[in-house]
């Protein structure tokens, strides 16, 4: 395989010319239709060892702190393998010329009900998953793609603790309208109506704690029983143990819905000390409490996202969580007309919280004084996650332009870029896979005709997993 180098200042390296010649050769050979900025990437995406794709753009915004202008991205098997001003790559490679375009990571929408119906449900429903109510084939993802979103986190409908958000790619792999990325991305926990929610969360957490105690007690009894059995065996050493009763009643505890305290596994087997102690079978945990148990034990499958309506809700939430220092989560701040989160900025910043909010200016309630919650939260130390005001197509489009407006009024550019890409990916638990143009990450990219933080810039093309999945003008 021949090594080649592509470079922006062509001609300085002799090998480079060779690369170019090769590229031109491909074009001449009629493969050009797949190389030039048209899509037609059927042959490429998906296969782990498929041919390389090389993107040459006017600018590449990595969202991890760098901008390469011009920039190159090398993609192999749907993953990014090279990024920089100049990147070495092995041929053969399909080259996408985007010399007049800016490439950045696909935008990530961390909280949406786009295209989904509403349900009214309340209370503790933590075992639910949004994926159970999402039927991708019934959703038209065009608006999301057009706005530049390559990943969307659908939230479960309802109040209280309505369940898990599920993360999807907005575009196909092999003809599917969308692809499930992470079924249990995070758990939605509403705390915007504390009169009802605070008691509910407090009660759910204490029930989860009781479940932990229950398992602990069962384990202790099992250990006690095991020890007794061992001692007994030691005493009757000459006689070899007869295994006539293999794990008699143990599996019974597994049956769901069985009252828990009355028959811990140990007691069942206690009258038969000769029996060899079976494996410890922990008692069943209420599936709706399972996520909370995991938070308390500090090994969550999905972290909570607390949805607040005011700074007061934040204090109420903290007072509920005070006895559970291991429970950590992110926040969603609903920006209503009278909502003012300023008193919570410092505390949120101190814990470097991921904070979802609309990119919009607000007012100090009952005054005409403008405040910029996003910029102030960022300065306090929070990691911002921008979400649209609603799920209408226009609002989806506006997330980026609203962010641009905030940049114009003082938000740091890098903060805005991250709030659209890598931070929402983190909220969805996909931070190691998505949200930045880095080696090893998925090649989820968008091509714009200008800077993403210029309001008039348009998304021209969308790539998911190295495959071009959408192009402007194509509906």
């Amino acid at each position, binding site marked *: 395989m021949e090594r080649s180098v592509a470079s922006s200042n062509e001609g300085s390296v002799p090998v480079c010319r060779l690369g170019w010649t090769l590229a031109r050769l491909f074009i001449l050979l009629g493969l050009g239709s797949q190389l030039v900025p048209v899509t037609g990437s059927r042959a490429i995406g998906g296969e782990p060892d498929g041919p390389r794709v090389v993107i040459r753009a006017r600018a590449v915004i990595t969202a991890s702190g760098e901008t390469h202008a011009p920039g190159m991205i090398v993609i192999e098997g749907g993953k990014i393998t090279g990024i920089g001003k100049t990147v070495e790559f092995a041929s053969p490679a399909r080259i996408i010329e985007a010399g007049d375009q800016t490439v950045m990571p696909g935008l990530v929408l961390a909280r949406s009900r786009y295209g989904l119906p509403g349900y009214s449900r309340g209370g503790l429903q933590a075992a639910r998953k949004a994926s159970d109510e999402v039927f991708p084939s019934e959703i038209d993802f065009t608006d999301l793609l057009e706005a530049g979103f390559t990943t969307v986190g659908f939230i479960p409908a309802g109040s209280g603790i309505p369940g898990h958000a599920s993360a999807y790619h907005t575009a196909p792999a092999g003809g599917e309208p969308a692809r499930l990325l992470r079924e249990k991305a995070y758990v939605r926990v509403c705390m915007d109506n*504390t*009169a009802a929610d*605070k*008691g509910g969360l407090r009660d759910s957490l204490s029930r989860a704690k009781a479940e932990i105690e229950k398992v602990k007690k069962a384990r202790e009894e099992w250990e006690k029983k095991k020890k007794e059995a061992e001692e007994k065996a030691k005493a009757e050493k000459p006689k070899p143990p007869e295994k006539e009763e293999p794990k008699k009643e143990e599996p019974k505890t597994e049956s769901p819905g069985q009252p828990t305290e009355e028959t811990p596994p140990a007691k069942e087997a206690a009258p038969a000390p000769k029996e060899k102690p079976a494996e410890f079978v922990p008692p069943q945990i209420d599936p709706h409490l399972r996520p909370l148990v995991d938070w308390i034990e500090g090994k969550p499958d999905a972290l909570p996202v607390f949805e607040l309506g*005011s*700074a*007061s809700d934040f*204090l*109420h939430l*903290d*007072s509920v969580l*005070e*006895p*559970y*220092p291991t429970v950590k989560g992110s926040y969603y701040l609903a920006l209503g007309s*009278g909502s*003012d989160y*300023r*008193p919570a*900025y*410092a505390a949120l*910043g101190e814990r470097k919280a991921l904070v979802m909010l609309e990119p919009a200016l607000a007012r*100090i*309630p*009952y*005054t005409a*004084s403008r*405040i910029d919650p996003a*910029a*102030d939260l*960022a*300065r*306090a130390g929070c990691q911002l996650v921008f979400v649209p005001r609603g799920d209408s197509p226009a609002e989806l489009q506006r997330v980026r332009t609203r962010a641009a407006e905030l940049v114009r009024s*003082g938000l*740091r550019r890098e903060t805005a870029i991250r709030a659209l890409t890598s931070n929402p990916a983190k909220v969805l638990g996909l931070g190691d896979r998505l949200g930045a143009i880095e080696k090893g990450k998925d090649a989820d990219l968008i091509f714009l005709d200008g800077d993403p933080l210029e309001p008039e810039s348009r998304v021209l093309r969308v790539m998911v997993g190295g495959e071009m999945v959408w192009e402007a003008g194509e509906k």
Partner: protein
Amino acid sequence: MNTSNVLSMAMLLVLASSLAASAEEAPKKPARHLAIRGATVHTVTGPVLAGATVLCRDGKITAIGSDIQIPEGAEVIDAAGHHLYPGLVVAGGTQGLVGGGNPEDSTDVYSLGMTLGLAGGLTTVVSDNQAAKLTQGAVGDIVLKRNLFERISYTSRNPGGRRALREAFERVREHLRATAEYERRKAADPEAKKPDDKWIQGEYERVLRLLEGRAVALVSAGEGHEILEACALAKLYGFKLVIEDAREGWTAASEMARSGASAIIMPRERVDPDERTGRPTGATTQNARILHEHGVPLAIATAGYISLGGMAGRDLQHLPMEAAYAVRGGLSDEAALAAITIDAARILGVDDRIGSVEVGKDADFAIADGDILHYMTHVRWTVVNGRVAYDRMKDTLFDHIRPPADAGSHPAVDHWPRSLGDDR
């Protein structure tokens, strides 16, 4: 192996117990000190102390006097030239300052209603039959007392209800007598039967609580004859009574005093006399004075809400104005102040915690830039549970209002949160 097992078990146990301990008790935080220096301290239950220091620790008053060592790290308010009062207490029902249901869970601790209440010097209000504090910026220690009163209806407009209530009192009193009789006989007579008490539920249970002195009755009685009838009932059955909205209390003051009833009044309330009756009726500004002179414990309340429309000065932001109106009717300044502090607290049964500036009581203060009963006075700071819950110069509501001599002397406060750093 065994030893290590035991060891690790022991360690686990220690860990678990320490975890449990930390879960139950609040994690040890350093003591929170607040010192207010140089104010004229109106203790209400004691003397007025000029230029005194009030020291608080973790929400309680720990020292009052002129020669007090302020601990290091204490938050210090320099209140020279200001007047420090106990936080004002509204004994009448209110809405919109704390949350409904359980205020510990439902209160918006940054709400405009709460802020305006604090700006009026209020620190404790009644909501949903609970005494609750205006703990701006803190969600703990909101509720002071639950189930303040048993509200009973005893009005001539509902004769059936009146009869039912009297019958309930009669029946429960009979039951109490029978129970006492049984207790007396029990030792001597093994066959004595305990009176059945399964029927004591609902209304009967409420009446029982009143008869046993475990609860205080609250009766809304504006007219003189209603007040007299409620007092007669209280005297007959011997329960504690608070009469709310006692606008014609002055016509029945001696009867109220004899039956031990307390009164919650709104001195500005106006009612024309009813010329058809042959007795004194109607409202008078002297109501408060007359009740006080007869020895009726008195709380002054005002309309139970914050109003930002209509005529200003008639809502919870202006409780001292309501009390000042009683002074206009002849009540002494001291009694008027007591009626919005310690006497209101007594009527609510929370005077062990609030209502005066005394060592051991809650650190709830209204610190004003003048006599709190004067119409020119503004509350400068309000302290609740030892925390500054309101600071006029740091809030957007009234910071622009300055005395004429002071105008322009210092710039308006910038409310932008610039203190968080300049990482732009």
